[in-house]
């Protein structure tokens, strides 16, 4: 079986990205300020509905992403700690 090796920093970075994405998903894009720019048609109202009409799932998703980012952060930190321990054991230093 092919093995995919992921270094601890990658997992830590993924955790950070997930946390940022969680924050972004938790916030609702507000097109009210830009409504005037869409002209006199119905497009602005339809866009508003598209962006704001999934609040329940948006908050669920944001929380899932937050939990995942948190877990990735823990996992990444654990791998980094193990790496550092092994390096110390062999008398080397980690950058």
């Amino acid at each position, binding site marked *: *079986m*092919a*093995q*995919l090796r*992921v270094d601890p920093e990658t*997992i830590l970075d*993924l955790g950070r*990205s*997930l946390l940022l*994405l*969680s*924050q*972004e*998903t*938790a*916030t*609702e*894009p*507000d*097109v*009210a*300020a*830009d409504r*005037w*720019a*869409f*002209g*006199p*048609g*119905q*497009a602005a109202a*339809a*866009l508003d*509905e*598209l*962006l704001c*009409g*999934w*609040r*329940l*799932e*948006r*908050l*669920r*998703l*944001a*929380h*899932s*992403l*937050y*939990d*995942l980012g948190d*877990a*990735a952060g*823990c*996992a990444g*930190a*654990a*791998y980094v700690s*193990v790496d550092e321990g092994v390096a110390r054991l062999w008398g080397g230093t980690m950058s």
Partner: protein
Amino acid sequence: MILAPLPGHAPTMLLVADELDRRASTLAATAAVLARLRSRGTSWDSPAGEAFGRLLASMPPHLDLVVDRYAVAADALRHLAAVLEEEQAVIQRAVDEEIDARAHVDAIETEIIALLDLGVPRESVEVQGALTRQRAHLARIVDAQDRHRAAWERYAAADEMCTSRLRAAAEDRLADPLAYRGLHAIHDLGEGLAAVGAMAGAHPLVRALGVAGGALTVVADVGLLAGYREGDALGLAVDGALAFTGGLGSAFMRGATQGGRVLGGVVVVDRTLSVQARIRAGWGTVLKEAVNDLRPLARIGESVRTPIAWVPRFKEGAPKAFSALWLREKAALLTLEKQRAALSAQVALATAAGREARQLWFGGAALSVAAKVGDQVVDRIPMRGSPDPPVSSRVCQRAPGPPPRAP
């Protein structure tokens, strides 16, 4: 008919589209990384890694739907922005041409009238020449109107197409259920009514509507918390407790003054009541007052039919030139005097009714003050990350702290 320019700003629409595209790209890239990590061959060599792997497996597969929403919206907006920009230019040219042609028509009209006033015959070369030029400018007006109408129709068709695409994209598994939307609508309505009712010097009818609005908000919040685990149980409990504390305080104060009256400045105690009986009687009075406050609601239809009855008028012979400031100060003084007199009478009644009644009155007053002050204190406590702060679609801000818990 004066032609109207087409409102809108395509560059701003493109900025919105860019922001949506950026969100779609970020989500798509993250979804791709998560999908790779979720593939069957992945194993984790630590408890933390295994916990992460388990969470990854239970992750709802919604990211792709969100990417679709943002990507479809960005594409639809780009198309509409292109049409808007193009047709805006056509419409603006038509508007300018129509204004110019109308100015020429008016000038030639003046010229023809002047010629006729001078006695130049209508069939003369000068008048006929002017009429021919005028007809040419009238034709320019008709042409400008035709181009304006056609461009406007092309924009309307593009807007309709964009709207249809956006609405179709909104009908996916992510869309909020009807009941959830209903609860939010009730919450918003209740908040609006409560805000209007809380305005200083509001009419009793408006105050009663405010009370009803507050109740609506609490009902909707309980529904959201119970049905969707959305909201803050602690905040809801504090709101309810403060409302209850205020009601309890009023009941204590009313109960303490039961069984006595003030006649010509003299306190007369008719009955001796136990503390329990006083509290029961106090609650009865508070409820009766609440019903009285709500009673004007039943007369809404009548008041709409006869709105003139609500307009306050000065009596005959009253001074006509009161300054607004003087009137306000006078009203505030009168209110203060009235409140002071009413409070003095209540304290006198409670004191005459005995030590327990006096303690009940002061306890009630303390609770009422606590409810009012507590409300303000709770309002001032900074929240840890607004649950749903609005952000501009152009400049995407990020809320601090974890997102609000949802099931």
